[in-house]
């Protein structure tokens, strides 16, 4: 239980920070696409008898980088490239699972998450990756923010925008696979998108928005894990429903005119 909460909080913080940049770049579904491609990687791992998350890291990062390159070279739009990435991952996964003799319990735990079963090794890995990614983001904060805000102006200011873009895709790939244990392949984009969409309605500046998003994300995860434990229901669904509840509440407050930033 402790491990689930510690890993959950780390993942909540990581997803909200990386997700904020993706949402602002109009890349909201990119997390989803990487998650689906990681499904292919998980299946590959199960077939080969390797720990599935390792193959998932490899496959999802490589496919995310390839699709970014293809998108640029052939001028395919963002949503279409996401659709390509998403369906190819699932297709590869299905074929491999077919070859290995059908679905197993393991596949379901990756599809829907299994945070209550997280091991000590997994917890250490999650904490380490969260730490590394947050340090990278903090040390390149201005460059990442500026190239998210306006690529052209960032280029004129001498920022290596293309390298930064690849870095973000790379970090998104790692974040997604790390988070699979919490909410599973199918619900990842909820953690990337919902707390950030909610926070953008409250926050004024960037840092304030990021902190609000992290708070919502951590709140949803902690309350979600505890609730699911008490009532013996699935944590992934509960976490996402709580964050949707926060978004709905915020929209209600906003519609009632109670939310003003001035």
């Amino acid at each position, binding site marked *: 239980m402790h491990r689930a909460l510690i890993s959950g909080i780390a993942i909540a913080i990581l997803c909200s920070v990386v997700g904020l940049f993706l949402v*602002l770049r*109009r890349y909201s579904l990119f997390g989803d696409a990487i998650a689906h491609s990681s499904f292919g990687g998980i299946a590959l791992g199960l077939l080969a008898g390797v720990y599935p998350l390792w193959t998932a890291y490899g496959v999802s990062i490589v496919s995310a980088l390839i699709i970014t390159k293809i998108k640029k070279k052939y001028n395919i739009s963002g949503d279409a490239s996401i659709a390509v990435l998403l369906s190819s991952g699932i297709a590869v996964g299905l074929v491999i699972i077919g070859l290995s003799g059908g679905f197993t319990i393991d596949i379901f735990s990756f599809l829907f998450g299994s945070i209550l079963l997280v091991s000590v090794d997994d917890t250490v890995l999650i904490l380490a990756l969260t730490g590394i990614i947050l340090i990278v983001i903090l040390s390149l904060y*201005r460059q990442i*923010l*500026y190239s998210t*805000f*306006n690529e*052209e*102006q*960032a*280029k*004129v*200011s*001498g920022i290596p925008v293309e390298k930064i873009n690849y870095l973000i895709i790379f970090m998104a790939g790692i974040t997604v696979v790390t988070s699979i244990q919490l909410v599973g392949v199918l619900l990842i984009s909820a953690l990337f998108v919902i707390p950030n969409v909610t*926070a*953008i309605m409250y*926050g*004024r*500046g*960037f*840092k*304030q*928005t990021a902190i609000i998003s992290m708070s919502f994300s951590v709140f949803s995860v902690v309350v979600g894990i505890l609730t699911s434990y008490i009532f013996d229901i699935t944590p992934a669904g509960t976490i996402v429903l709580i964050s949707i509840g926060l978004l709905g509440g915020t929209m209600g407050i906003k519609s009632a005119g109670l939310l003003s*930033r*001035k």
Partner: protein
Amino acid sequence: MSIVEITNLTVQYPDVKALDDVSFTVNQGDFLGIIGPNGAGKSTLFDAMLSLNTKYKGTIKFFGEDIRKSKNYLKEIGYVPQKPIFEKNFPATVNDVVRMGLRNESDENKIDEILQQLWIHELSNRRIGELSGGQLQRVFIAKALVNNPKVLILDEPVTGIDQQSIELFYSILRELNSKQKITIIWSSHDLDAVNKLANHVACLNRTLFFHGISEKFFSDDELVKQYSEASMQEHMHHH
């Protein structure tokens, strides 16, 4: 001292030659107004000067160095785009946006200083999506100035801005050039404004029609007439 040297610059797009054999020099302290009708190649010229487009023929030198060889010159340039494009809902305050331009984090005080100089200090904590066109423009000028650039490049920066803000903007430019000795390169299609502010003029209509001190251009009725006719023809052609 020459700040910019452009020699035989030609930019060929698939269907049109956007710039044809353009050469001119900008010296330290110049306030150069680049005038020309829509489609004259002003933005194409800036894209090449800022290394946003590198598919050009000819040479562009900043501070004596070919910009194909080194991008270091960008550190000395402040650029204000025609229309600052950003996500309307972007969660950034005025202070956040100006800070993005700041290369050296330890120059924190510089942000307050520049916001005060441009009369937007009170807006420091406002979200940028809530600002008017004139306020937004000053925010982007502040961002361009926050690193103490030697050159300020502005691309038709008064499109869609109210008259009062335009006047304020012009007085800011004048002060930057005369008091702080910043070299300004400014594209505009407002001949009157260029006449009032700039000390040098470059008339562009894919080729360079005239380049020299602005009095010479504006006191030569024949030249102004020729230019107006050329741009009118171009204008008619476009419509």
